[in-house]
């Protein structure tokens, strides 16, 4: 993966930049010694690393504004960072950049149960947002698997999803407002505790913009009351196609499960070895979870089980207790870990129309043989967001490159059948060079023009999302004097 060469003129002014940053931040919030900047050299896409020139850790919106104003004047690129769990390299630095980490911005500013909102600083972790309202039986719905670590800032930048988004939507559907600092230091309030925008839906374009339009420092989020209960059912099939048809029938029947998770044979086998969840020996496994009171759950599950039976499952197991529910989820939750036990893996994130599931799984199986690399599939079947996990050996020369080529082919396949490159992890650097497979030059130009408005000098996270060749003329190579 190519990154732009660092600008020597910026590097030569490092001391001056640090000096100026120290005028607006406490000493411990400006990290510039080489040994220490290394802590920010990568996110969860660990194959790519590069320590930044400087990292700063502001504690409030004013400090963020001061930092951005200085970087804007100095012509220094800025890469915003939440918790660094991006799987796409969204928070990967360049050697001439300032990493702006929001980890110290982690307060709850307001909880309002009547209006069902919480206002937090953006560095707060996803799970601790729910933690702040749990006492009153409320929760924040989007639940990425990384929720213990990832920050609301990163969730907003990536428009992150989770296992329960079939019912509750993703970040953009649960975000009501942000305080954001523009690259020149201007602080803007977009949205708030009310619904809908007064004019253009600027919040809608900010969410999912991968840190390229502004630095989000505060967010107003929708919170919901917890459901009375939830219960899963597990079903096994001896054919992927049948499992796919079962998913479609459940959806058509008018029940809306909170989650429909799918695992294929390689993944089932790996998790059985690792977690011993007692999963059946079969080609495809579905976990379907519904919510409500006991009686409501019984009613929905009876509809779902009838549909499953009409597809001749090899196994149909309804949870009868919290312990059985945990057992059903155990394998699914350890799937990534189980695959990781076998080898290094790369996690893809393309989305496909649900109707294309059987075809895509078959093609991935064929490609796996062609490339000689194993793949396990575990994903959110209700919304078609696939997570193929390609196994490779990082110590074997050429294996990473082979794996990346295989991954690219899978993502192209997702686009070909009417889907997209990424359903929730974002483009970052990882899928940057595949963007032309999904967008033609005009589609892409329309997006670039939006960044031109928010960040005319292209200083915010400039080397991400779009192929470097298309952004080259826009990225400022010349630092202001």
């Amino acid at each position: 993966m190519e990154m732009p060469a660092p600008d020597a003129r910026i590097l030569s002014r490092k001391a001056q930049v640090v000096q100026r940053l120290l005028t607006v931040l406490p000493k411990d919030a400006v990290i510039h010694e080489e040994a220490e900047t290394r802590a920010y050299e990568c996110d969860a896409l660990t194959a790519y690393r590069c320590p930044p020139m400087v990292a700063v850790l502001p504690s409030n919106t004013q400090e963020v504004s001061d930092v951005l104003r200085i970087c804007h004047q100095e012509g220094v690129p800025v890469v915003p960072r939440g918790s660094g769990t991006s799987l796409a390299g969204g928070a990967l630095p360049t050697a001439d950049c300032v990493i702006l980490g929001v980890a110290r911005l982690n307060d709850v500013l307001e909880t309002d149960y009547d209006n069902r909102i919480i206002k937090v600083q953006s560095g707060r972790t996803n799970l601790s947002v729910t933690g702040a309202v749990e006492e009153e039986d409320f929760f924040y719905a989007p639940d990425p698997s990384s929720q213990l670590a990832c920050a609301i800032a990163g969730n907003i930048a990536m428009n992150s999803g989770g296992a329960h988004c079939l019912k509750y939507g993703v970040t953009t559907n649960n975000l009501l407002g942000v305080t954001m600092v523009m690259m020149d230091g201007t602080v803007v309030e977009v949205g708030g505790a009310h619904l809908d925008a007064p004019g253009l839906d600027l919040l809608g374009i900010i969410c999912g913009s991968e840190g390229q339009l502004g630095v989000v420092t505060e967010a107003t989020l929708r919170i919901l009351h917890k459901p009375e209960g939830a219960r899963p059912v597990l079903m096994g099939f001896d054919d992927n196609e049948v499992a796919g048809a079962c998913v479609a029938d459940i959806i058509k029947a008018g029940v809306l499960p909170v989650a429909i998770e799918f695992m294929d044979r390689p993944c089932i086998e790996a998790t059985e070895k690792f977690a011993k969840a007692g999963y059946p020996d079969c080609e495809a496994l579905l976990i379907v979870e519904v919510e409500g009171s006991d009686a409501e759950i019984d009613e929905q599950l009876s509809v779902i089980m009838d549909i499953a039976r009409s597809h001749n499952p090899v196994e149909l197991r309804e949870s009868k207790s919290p312990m059985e529910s945990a057992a059903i989820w155990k394998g699914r939750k350890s799937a990534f870990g189980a695959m990781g036990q076998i080898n290094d893996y790369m996690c893809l994130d393309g989305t496909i129309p649900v109707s294309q599931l059987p075809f895509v799984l078959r093609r991935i199986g064929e490609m796996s043989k062609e490339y000689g690399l194993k793949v396990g599939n575990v994903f959110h079947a209700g919304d078609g967001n696939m997570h193929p996990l390609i196994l490779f050996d990082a110590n074997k020369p050429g294996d990473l490159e082979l794996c990346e080529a295989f991954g690219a082919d899978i993502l192209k396949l997702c686009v070909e059948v009417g889907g997209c490159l990424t359903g929730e992890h974002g483009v970052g650097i990882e899928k940057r060079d595949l963007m032309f497979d999904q967008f033609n030059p005009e589609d892409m130009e329309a997006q670039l023009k939006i960044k031109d408005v928010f960040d005319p000098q292209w200083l915010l996270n400039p080397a991400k999302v779009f192929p470097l060749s298309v952004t080259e003329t826009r990225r400022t190579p010349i630092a202001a004097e």
Partner: protein
Amino acid sequence: MMTLQPRSESDLSEAVASAYAAKTPLEIVGGGTRRTLGGPVQAADTLSTAGLSGITLYEPGALTIVAQAGTPLAEVEAALKAENQRLPFEPMDHRALLGTEGEPTIGGVVAANVSGPRRFQVGACRDSLIGVRYVDGQGTAIKNGGRVMKNVTGYDIVKLMAGSYGTLGVLSEVSFKVLPDTAHSSVLLFEGLSDVDAVACMCAAMATPYEVSGAAHLPVGMDGAPVTMLRLEGFEKSVAYRAGELAKALAHFGTPKVESDPDKTAAGWRYIRDVEAFAGQPGDVWRVSVKPTDGPKVAAAVGAQGVVYDWSGGLVWLLVGEGTDIRPALAGIAGHATLIRASASTRAAIPAFHPEAAPLAKVTAGLRAQFDPAGILNPGRMG
């Protein structure tokens, strides 16, 4: 004066490209049922999307529908109904309120981000919209999003197009995530609550696990007395159970009547959705968006002739004397006010859309200049 009626997206591209070359402003019309909304458009020529009609793809098992922008909303809703599905956001019909005629189009619904009572539970039109194709102000056809419900590839222009009132581009095709229609619906009706108590009751209902999908209050109900409405939807047994639990949880607001007759409940929510209370009534109509507990403050500050609360109190419809600018009265309450119905002279004098703070207005102007450099798409509608 000319009406352009392209029959395909490439026709549409050509039509807009020529208008761009000649710097001729265009008024974009779908069904024309909400044409009087927003500021008056300064354009002699009209571009109709009526020729871009038809459902292009519908996969009930994937909860996805794609239609050309000029497709009548009624056609989309009928196709969904045949499969027991629906647009989750319950789009409002503006015809009675605005006194307009014609067939609302799905593109018009998106261009105005039209949503109804269910919006506060399942989101607005923009939340169900998963893909758009549009032609920008230079005639370039552009796509964003697609037909899958999880997609974070590139910027989410889909959201930006929803509610842009044709000022950023002419939509040619729109895709939605849809939801199963519900088998059964009941409404809990509380009578005689003050505005403040009604909002407290609705907020308390929303703070339960019972999945209330409509919460509205009429200070003057159909029979003249205040009525507060809470809607539950789903399987019959589940609705009955939740109605019972909700009534218990809200007992201190009174004993609600439970209405389950399908025609009556549908009529009740249509009355709220389409603001029927103000249809045919003299006066201007405003739509104010605030946090729910501020709803009664809005009504009190404005002193309106008529008030309808939806979205648990967060959406306040106001009927006021002709030519009244209510915004000064709302100073200090966070949110925004849109002028929905007024005479042409009032609409020329008072901006329909709430003025934005200076730095956001600059961004908005910048975006419009990028999407429509010659300013030929619906000039005047959004200022």
